[in-house]
């Protein structure tokens, strides 16, 4: 793995870390969901600091170059994060629906009482 590639990976990791920490500080992101991204930061750091891991898996999995391997790992990580987000969004949709229904039924009850 070239020194250049290691540098870029490390840089990406640092920027990502700073962005996430900043978002957490401003309370724009729940700690719970930041773990997804911290996982990516750790992955980036591992790749940059221990390139041997990449070389090992590159040979094992038959990737032609280390950079391909790195890109492959990223695509997979992003897929994982996107699926997690889809699950989160679906869960929220259910909760919002429940809220709308319960509030609307309650409102009807109150209005019914007022009419009497």
């Amino acid at each position, binding site marked *: 793995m070239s020194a250049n590639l290691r540098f870029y990976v490390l840089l990406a990791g640092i920027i990502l870390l700073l962005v996430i920490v900043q978002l957490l500080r401003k309370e724009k992101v729940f700690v719970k969901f930041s773990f997804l991204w911290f996982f990516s930061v750790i992955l980036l750091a591992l790749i940059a600091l221990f390139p041997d891991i990449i070389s090992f898996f590159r040979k094992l999995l038959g990737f032609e170059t280390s950079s391909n391997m790195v890109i492959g790992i990223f695509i997979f990580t992003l897929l994982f994060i996107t699926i997690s987000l889809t699950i989160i969004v679906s869960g929220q949709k259910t909760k919002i*629906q429940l809220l*709308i*229904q319960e509030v*609307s*039924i309650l*409102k*009807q009850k109150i209005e019914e009482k007022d009419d009497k």
Partner: protein
Amino acid sequence: MKKSRVLIIIPAYNEEENILDVYKGIQNAKESDMFTYDTIIINDGSTDATKAICKENKIPCINLIHNLGIGGAVQTGYKYAYDNDYDIAVQFDGDGQHEVLSIVDVIQPIINDEADFVIGSRFIDKTKDNFQSSTARRAGIRLISWMIKLVTGKRIYDTTSGFRAGNKKVIEIFAQKYPVEYPEPITTTELLKKKYRIKEVFAQMHERTGGTSSIHTWKNVYYMVNIILSIFIVGIRGDK
């Protein structure tokens, strides 16, 4: 024998032209020695005068504070039925498509304890003159019917009918869980899989008297793919 308490759930989205007639129709058909009717309109966040019309005419109505779609609206009705301990719930469209006189036919099998869930069907009796909808739609309904047969082994003819009735057990199930999109075929499949007794009876249906249907042509492909996938998923889901 104690009279069964029946709740008629009418989901309505922008039905200002139809809602009053539909409600009056039900009021006129009311009462029987077997059961008593109550009606509740679920106004799914209509942007027209539906809410005002209900208020003005003192029609019992739950106004959803935000549009939920047909599944969310109908489920609100089932929740209301569950909270208020109704024996039977009937889904009845707010657009004037369903015939009021057929309500009794849909309820009867539940009162006789022949079925847990009854579907009012356009297709069960070919001899009667009935509004049958377009060829494309009928083909779609047949495809869904075939898919349900594949998954559950049972044949349902009018898979997308929104004219349905359920007993107490079904009310409880639907109050807890009901699909948001295209709920009819999916809930039918779920009930069949859970071994509930479903009966299809003939119900008179008309062409819409006013307003526009919620089914658009350009959505049909998405509709079919969504339903077929949903039924398939119900099929491979473990029994819980």
